């Protein structure tokens, strides 16, 4: 009885519906709308990608056009008449190999000033960088025989002249440059000291090496601390920790920690590492510790996701032939999770490399004119150096700031390149 009614109802259904007309105008309109919607979506996506690529290109172009001139320095051809100059040096000492030591006390700055006045008039020395005498020193060491004759040596120009030669200087300076050019006394060369010197007060003498080395040391400390601790935490939390209120609390804390503003970590570093542990100020070790705290949660989160993504069948397989839990982790889970962990590490380390705020709190903004010899020496890092130079009054620092940004970007790309190479290697092993 029940079955019969059901059947009757079931049969009635198809009769209620007319056959679908797939070619009706309404249907065609629906198809046209569907195509239009897809086209619109594709165009919007393309526009979004183009816009971001455009911003990136604009950034790179501005950095390059402002910064590349920072790697070039203007040099003035300075004629020096060594036999008649007030030079106090014994040529025999230079030949014996102790040239730098002998010339350090040889009154070279006075020689330079005298030569500049002779060549360019009473205020001649103002055309030259304060470090111009080092060019004389290097020339004498390279070829001591010039001490017996008159020689023309290319010495770095003063900041104003340098800027004017690059067409960004003041009107007066440009006039002087025009005069020097008429005498064919100006040339430009690669600014090697920019890559080998450290911070200074004269923009023609500053270099990035100190900050670069500081960044390198800080990153090494950060990586050595945060990577193993974070990976072990991620594995412990995923593979060993029981699921209870405590582990939930830890998970929430780690997720929140990853979102804490970085300057808070700086305050923590100040309170704990400097005030409580009495570690040295401005040192790479403290910067590294502080940034490690900041980087760890990022790696833990990425690591846990990577460990979670390893298929359980692999664990079963290993357990099933008698692997111990630790063998399962280190022989199977960790190698398979490594690409994911490395991705998290790249993100965390890239963020740490670009971090300025927490390092200001622990004193890494100090003026440091010598590169750090180790992790406990006072140091500064690239982003802080950029921040400091961008704050300088002298216009010569503008191009140095942009040049430092280029160095930072190259550092970042190199670091990411290594990480991506490692990631691909791990992926290929399987």
């Amino acid at each position, binding site marked *: 009885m029940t079955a019969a009614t059901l059947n009757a109802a079931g049969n009635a259904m198809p009769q209620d519906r007319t056959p679908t007309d797939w070619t009706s105008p309404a249907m065609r309109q629906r198809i046209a709308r569907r195509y239009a919607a897809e086209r619109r979506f594709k165009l919007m996506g393309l526009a979004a990608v183009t816009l971001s690529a455009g911003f990136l290109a604009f950034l790179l172009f501005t950095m390059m056009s402002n910064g590349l001139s920072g790697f070039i320095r203007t040099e003035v051809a300075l004629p020096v008449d060594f036999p008649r100059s007030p030079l106090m040096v014994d040529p025999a000492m230079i030949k014996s190999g102790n040239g730098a030591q002998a010339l350090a006390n040889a009154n070279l700055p006075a020689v330079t000033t005298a030569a500049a006045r002779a060549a360019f008039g009473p205020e001649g020395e103002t055309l030259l960088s304060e470090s111009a005498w080092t060019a004389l020193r290097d020339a004498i060491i390279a070829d001591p025989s010039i001490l017996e004759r008159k020689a023309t040596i290319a010495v770095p120009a003063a900041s104003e002249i340098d800027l004017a030669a690059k067409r960004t200087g003041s009107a007066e300076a440009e006039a002087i440059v025009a005069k020097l050019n008429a005498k064919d006394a100006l040339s430009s060369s690669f600014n090697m000291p920019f890559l080998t010197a450290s911070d200074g007060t004269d923009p023609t003498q500053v270099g990035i090496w100190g900050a670069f080395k500081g960044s390198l040391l800080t990153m090494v400390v950060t990586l050595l601390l945060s990577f193993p601790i974070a990976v072990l935490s991620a594995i412990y939390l995923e593979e060993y920790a029981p699921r209870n209120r405590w582990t939930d609390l830890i998970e929430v804390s780690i997720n929140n920690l990853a979102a804490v503003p970085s300057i808070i970590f700086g305050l923590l570093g100040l309170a704990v590492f400097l005030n409580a542990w009495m570690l040295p100020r401005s040192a790479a070790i403290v910067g590294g510790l502080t940034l490690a705290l900041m980087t760890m949660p990022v790696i833990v989160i990425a690591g846990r996701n990577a460990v979670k993504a390893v298929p359980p*069948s*692999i664990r079963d*397989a290993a357990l099933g032939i008698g*692997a111990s839990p630790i063998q399962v982790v280190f022989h199977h889970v960790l190698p398979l999770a490594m690409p994911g962990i490395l991705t998290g590490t790249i993100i965390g380390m890239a963020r740490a490399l670009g971090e300025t705020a927490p390092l200001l709190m622990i004193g890494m903004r100090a003026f440091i004119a010598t590169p750090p010899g180790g992790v406990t020496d006072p140091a500064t890092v690239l982003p802080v150096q950029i921040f400091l130079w961008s704050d300088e009054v002298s216009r010569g620092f503008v191009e140095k700031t942009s040049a430092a940004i280029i160095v930072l970007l190259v550092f970042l790309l190199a670091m990411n390149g290594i990480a991506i190479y490692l990631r691909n290697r791990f992926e290929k092993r*399987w």
Partner: protein
Amino acid sequence: MATTRNPVTKMAARDVNVFYGDKQAIRNVSIDMGMDEVTAFIGPSGCGKSTFLRTLNRMNDTVASARVDGTITLDGQDIYASDMDVVQLRARVGMVFQKPNPFPKSIYENVAYGPRIHGLANSKADMDVIVEQSLRRAGLWEEVKDRLQDSGTALSGGQQQRLCIGRAIAVQPEVILMDEPCSALDPIATAKIEELIHALRGRYAIVIVTHNMQQAARVSQRTAFFHLGTLVEYGVTSDIFTNPREERTKDYITGRYG
């Protein structure tokens, strides 16, 4: 129930209960599994046959909420005793899973991994012998001998499953547990695995869980029928399929439910 005794018992369970949290998955199962035999567990989905299989090498230990009552013995030794080393137990009681799960490493490494972690090979030459012998027993040697360094995951499904059997054999287990080893395979690959089970019988005690009653009839000497977490009937396979004692067994094997 389950009064038929094997001449030589390899593994025996007495009054085993398994709980997942508050839910009881296995109720009072007692069963003996013979040394030279293939024992099949059949039953409808969710009847507990796989759960019970996983208690035999303590794979249930990895599930935090699982709890096992009663005794299970291997050669008379209680495997849930506190002095039983789980890692060694799993080497003695190997397992093959439903879905082929080779390690994402080379074929050679897949087989060599077990012997290596248990220190069963003294040299590279030793290991080569173990790998060849295991793959021969798993019926895979002829197909892969020229490409041992290829990835195990590049093999076909049936080959992968035979590789997993070879991997289990390589640690010289006494018992091999197979959890629906053919459910993800096509009929030809299934036939090969069944031949392999025939070939391995006698050397290892084999316990196989299967959905496929014809398979149970083909490969096993004894069959246990599980339903709703209880062992309904256990006996010689031909008796179970031709002359079941219990009404529920009869209904199941004639396709009334399942």
